């Protein structure tokens, strides 16, 4: 072969290269078409979009959605937003002509608003055979809604949603420091304060860090274990239709006084501005010896890329006042399907929820770093593995956990609750004044909306 021929072979004429390029292009297109067709053949449902919150447990949810896509071939898009933005988006979605989301993930203070407003399709209306797995927690029956009575009732109610996350607070404590200082896991608030004082060495480390910032159930959610743990409550027996405001009770006052005292004597110097992300940051950087936050934050404690305290944090139920029991608040997230969606997409949304509640999916969900919503998973052998040591505390907590609001005015009540607690923590109001003002504002909101309400006599300020 001549040099020229060899050169021609190495660099084929332009038209030959073009034809080769065409062939390659055609093959590529054929392969892409084949891949598309096989994916379409595998996918049993149309693509859906889920409106999801930017939360500490979102990483695990994202991974489980990926697993769902791999397992079923169905396509799921996630649209992730911060708390406030998510709620506004979801409201706009269900109040418009057609929702862009097939599944709404909403926090528990918003569920009555979505149920009572007629914004969600009952899951059994999409598929009459669909049932919540008996192993899935019903979280104070917040997954059911009885439109006739306007209450969350299993009997007579319809299934409206599937729990997505059991967002209950537990006590995080530095087990290594407890051992060094010969401290015991606190059962009561007084023991908690004593431990916090023993570990408090600011600015190197704070004995206890609280989530004191204001939002809609930020500081409020942080305060609820104290309120319930002192025997107090916000409203009367809501499930029986009693919406009397009982927040300005002596028990609530004792709880708030203790909460402020804990902050001042062993806490962060400016607790009224500390967010949940900052509490987690203080824990993983070793600046907080103890905190009571959502169990979902545990995923970050043992992440060597994020945490300086890997393996050093342990978990327990939230403490209580002497003579009372531990009662953390429920703060779970629910997944529901909008009413204003084509039937095929509603079915596709339900297909995801049905898959999500299975034992295998929930085991994977837990391994992916999110607390599961199934009892059998939470009490499985997984809980005995060191990485999942938070599961015992969560399982215990869920036995007594209480739902704070059963009213569609929950967002407005939560805003008032947060505002007044934050003012008390910031020193703008005395605890008694904060509770009195919150109670009056709550009564006003409930009265305007036609609830059977009332109020206790004012606390002495």
């Amino acid at each position: 072969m001549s040099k020229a021929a060899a050169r021609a072979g190495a660099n084929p004429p332009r038209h030959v290269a073009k034809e080769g390029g065409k062939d390659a292009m055609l093959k590529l297109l054929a392969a892409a078409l084949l891949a598309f067709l096989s994916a379409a053949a595998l996918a049993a449902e149309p693509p859906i979009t889920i409106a999801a919150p930017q939360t500490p447990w979102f990483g695990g949810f994202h991974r489980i959605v990926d697993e769902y896509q791999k397992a079923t071939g169905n396509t799921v898009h996630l649209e992730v937003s911060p708390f406030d933005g998510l709620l506004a988006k979801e409201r706009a979605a269900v109040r418009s002509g057609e929702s862009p989301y097939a599944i709404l993930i909403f926090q528990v203070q918003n569920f009555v608003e979505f149920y009572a407003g007629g914004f969600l399709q009952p899951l059994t209306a999409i598929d009459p055979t669909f049932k919540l797995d008996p192993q899935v927690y019903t979280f104070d029956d917040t997954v059911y809604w009885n439109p006739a009575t306007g209450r969350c009732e299993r009997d007579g109610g319809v299934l409206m949603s599937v729990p997505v996350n059991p967002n209950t607070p537990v006590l995080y404590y530095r087990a290594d420091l407890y051992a060094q200082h010969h401290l015991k896991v606190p059962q009561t608030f007084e023991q908690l304060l004593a431990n916090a004082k023993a570990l408090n060495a600011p600015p190197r480390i704070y004995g206890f860090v609280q989530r004191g910032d204001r939002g809609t159930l930020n500081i409020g959610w942080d305060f609820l274990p104290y309120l319930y743990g002192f025997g107090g409550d916000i409203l009367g027996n809501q499930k029986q239709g009693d919406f009397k405001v009982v927040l300005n009770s002596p028990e609530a006052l004792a709880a708030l006084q203790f909460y402020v005292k804990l902050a001042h004597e062993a806490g962060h110097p400016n607790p009224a501005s500390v967010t949940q992300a900052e509490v987690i940051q203080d824990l993983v950087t070793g600046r907080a010896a103890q905190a009571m936050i959502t169990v979902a934050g545990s995923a970050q404690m043992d992440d060597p890329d994020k945490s300086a305290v890997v393996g050093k944090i342990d978990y327990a139920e939230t403490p209580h006042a002497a003579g009372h029991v531990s009662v953390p608040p429920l703060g779970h997230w629910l997944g529901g399907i909008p009413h204003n969606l084509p039937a095929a997409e509603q079915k596709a949304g339900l297909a995801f929820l049905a898959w999500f509640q299975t034992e295998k999916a929930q085991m994977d969900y837990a391994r992916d770093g999110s607390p599961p919503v199934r009892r059998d998973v939470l009490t499985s052998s997984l809980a005995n593995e060191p990485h999942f040591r938070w599961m015992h505390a969560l399982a215990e907590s869920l036995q007594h956990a209480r739902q704070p609001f059963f009213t569609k005015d929950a967002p407005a009540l939560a805003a008032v609750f947060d505002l007044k607690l934050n003012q008390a923590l910031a020193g703008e109001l005395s605890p008694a004044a904060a509770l009195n003002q919150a109670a009056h504002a709550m009564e006003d909101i409930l009265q305007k909306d036609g609830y059977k309400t009332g109020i206790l006599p004012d606390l002495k300020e």
Partner: protein
Amino acid sequence: MTAASGAPWLPVGRLRRQRGRLRNSEQVWRWAMMAPVLAMLTGLTLLPLCALLVLSFSNVTWRNARPILTGAGLSNFAALLHDSLFLTSVRNTLVFAGVAVSIEIALGLTLALALGAVRRGKDFYTTAFMLPILLPGIVIGAIWALMYNPDFGIIDASLGALGLPARDWLGNPDTALGAIVAVDVWHWTPFCFLLLYAAVESLPADVFEAARIDGASAWQRCRFIALPLLAPAIMVVLAFRAIIAFKVFDEVYLLTSGGPGTSTEVVSLTIYRRFFVEDRAGSGAAMSIVAFLVLGAVTLAVMGVIRKKRR
């Protein structure tokens, strides 16, 4: 009888009719030209305002995914008189706007006058001064949140280097509003500077030259010539900035969300929460109407002062 001017051969009555027709056709043409703008104004400004007004006299509930508006009379407005959060937010907004805008105009004017006297490198200085206003609010929030961070922020690190104690500027109720004012001053002083610099550049040089020859000092030229001539421009900047400052939202939302306590709560944030978080549209609309009226009053007052100055 014929007309004295115009078309003398036409009878007066006919001329009048013709003029009337002409005037009518001119008016029709004028209205036709303005119609698209008027339609846009009605559609984009007046109708939403009317809807807001209706909403402010109503309570909204949702049933079967449909809104139900019930008349609330003046109750939403009356409730604002006892709404401590709203009243605090109005007070904070006025303090914020008053302090921030005063500092921004003073700094902007100083920079404009100083740059007016500079002979070389004006373009460089103008570009450098303009940088903060080019940044989006979200970036400014992120930058300053990091700078104010008590653990690793540059502000506390600098104070530490000087032997001064670190402070949680945004977390302390005593310093939070001041810290946000500082961010706003950094952000908006370039805006004041830009408008005032344009005014400074258009000042008549001969007047200053004459004053200088007559022996007026630099301070006297500034006090008795520049400032009176710049007064209308200053008032316009004041009006613009007061309106924008009264609507402050992004800086507060990103840096403190209104806290700690209510120390940085501002009107826009309260309205946002009432509408979009608490879902109390009637109350939120009443707040919006009050805020709109306050802003309208401020604007009218400033415009009145400007008109008076011009006269």
